[in-house]
């Protein structure tokens, strides 16, 4: 392993890395080797982005598409967390539930979330219900697994101590099991948030009529690469923001809980 470079050198190399990325993109796009419609330059994308914010495309402005996506996403993710986390905790607590649910869970685990698209559309339509179900199917498994693992990892002595002092099942769950598994749950929610966002994008590419994914599909069928790239940037930025926010929560909770 090489010597550790100094801060100045690292910063310089990082700046060079950013410059390299944009230089390659700009160079290839501006060289005329590929048509502009196929590979726009970064400034073309920026111009298109400003236009999308001002003027509606595919029925709505960029912000409206983004808001539609985020709304759907929040509903699907909230549903997955609200069902998945309690289910995982209860599976970790009641052995019989674990034995009953685990085989079913194993059986459907290998189904890729996007493979639910046809049924989701048949059952709940393509407006709001179908996409929510697809986000749910992407975000649900990590919620269950992390809550289950968290519950299993709670120190048995704490549970026994609570029981010795006369706490019933309900109190043990509320006051020992939930706080004890919170760090694991938060890590799971972060994974689940990422998978849910990814599933949303997939769902919007296939079955909806508003949202960033839809904007991209429309851009694609008009061969407007710049619009597609604007959609990618929007999706990436929101996904990044979600991850940063949950990372922050995760750090706060882990810092609070670790002394115990």
């Amino acid at each position, binding site marked *: *392993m*090489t010597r*550790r*470079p100094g801060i100045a*050198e*690292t910063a310089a*190399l*990082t700046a*060079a*890395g*950013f410059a*390299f*990325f944009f230089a390659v993109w700009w160079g290839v796009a501006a060289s005329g080797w590929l048509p502009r419609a*196929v590979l726009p330059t970064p400034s073309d994308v920026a111009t298109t982005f400003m236009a999308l914010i001002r003027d509606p495309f595919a029925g709505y402005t960029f912000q409206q598409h983004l808001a539609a996506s985020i709304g759907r996403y929040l509903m699907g993710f909230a549903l997955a967390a609200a069902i998945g986390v309690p289910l995982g905790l209860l599976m970790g607590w009641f052995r*019989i539930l674990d*034995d*009953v*649910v*685990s*085989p*079913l869970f194993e*059986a*459907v685990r*290998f*189904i*890729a*979330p*996007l*493979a*639910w*698209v*046809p*049924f989701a*559309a*048949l*059952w709940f339509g393509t407006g709001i219900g179908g996409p929510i179900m697809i986000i749910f199917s992407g975000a649900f498994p990590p919620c269950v697994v992390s809550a289950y693992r968290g519950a299993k990892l709670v120190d048995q002595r704490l549970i026994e101590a609570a029981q010795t002092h006369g706490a019933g099942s309900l109190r043990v769950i509320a006051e020992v099991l939930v706080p004890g598994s919170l760090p694991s749950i938060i890590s799971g929610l972060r994974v689940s948030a990422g998978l849910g*966002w*990814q599933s949303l*994008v*997939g769902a919007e*590419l*296939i079955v909806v009529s508003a949202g960033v*994914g839809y904007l*991209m*599909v429309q*851009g*694609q069928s008009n*061969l407007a*690469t710049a619009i*597609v*790239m604007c*959609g*990618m*940037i929007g*999706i*990436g*930025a929101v*996904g*990044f923001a979600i*991850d940063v926010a949950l990372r922050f929560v995760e750090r706060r909770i882990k810092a609070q809980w670790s002394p115990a």
Partner: protein
Amino acid sequence: MAWRLSRRAAIGTATIGASLLAWWLLTAVTGIVGPQRFPSPAETWAALAQLWDPGYAGGRLPQQVYHSLRLVLLSFLAASAIGVPLGMAMGLSRRFEAFINPTFLLLRPIPPLAWIPLAIVWFGLGDGGKIFTICLAAFVPATINAYVGVRNIDPIFLAAARVHGASSAQLVRDVILPGALPLIFTGLRLSLQASWTTLVAAELVGAFFGLGRVLNVAYQDIFPGMILVGMVLVSLAGAATTMALAMVERRAIPWRAPL
């Protein structure tokens, strides 16, 4: 312990059995769940028979499976062949890491599925665009885990090998690669999973053949039996490749206890 295991297995079998029974009762016997919503066992079987002969959505069952499997394997292998060495190089050289990281920071938050429309503009609906998208999806976990795997090697091992006169090549081959292998395989498992997810999405958005195409045509035909068959086939293919990778892993890392 033996009692626990057999109890678990018994309850598991009973659960699966009860679910199948409930499926049959709800769809075929009582009709509470209509044929437009979910297929009965008989309809599913008929769909499978139809896919086997004469075929559906442009091909028969083995052709559709082969087409999807080939795309996944090709892309997965290409992505690992580039991603793992790149990740290791980032782990080995902090300078290289500092230089490459910005590109990663910019591209990584974009979910692989978001590349699908761009891939269609660039490569059309054929295999090229799918290989491009799946490669991108598989590339990120392979690279990151190889990087973390190298970075997490205990520096004492490196110092010990150095003190005993190991050359750089020996260091990489005998210390760094074996030390990073467990995490490299973790990354490959995630890559493989991402490959299948992306394949399904890419074929659903637009394709001429493959299991995702079967799902898409079945959806447009409102043919629930075929939708279910397609889902099961995709899952089985995903599970089979995951198991194959686990076998390779056991051969490559014999010193690690199986998880």
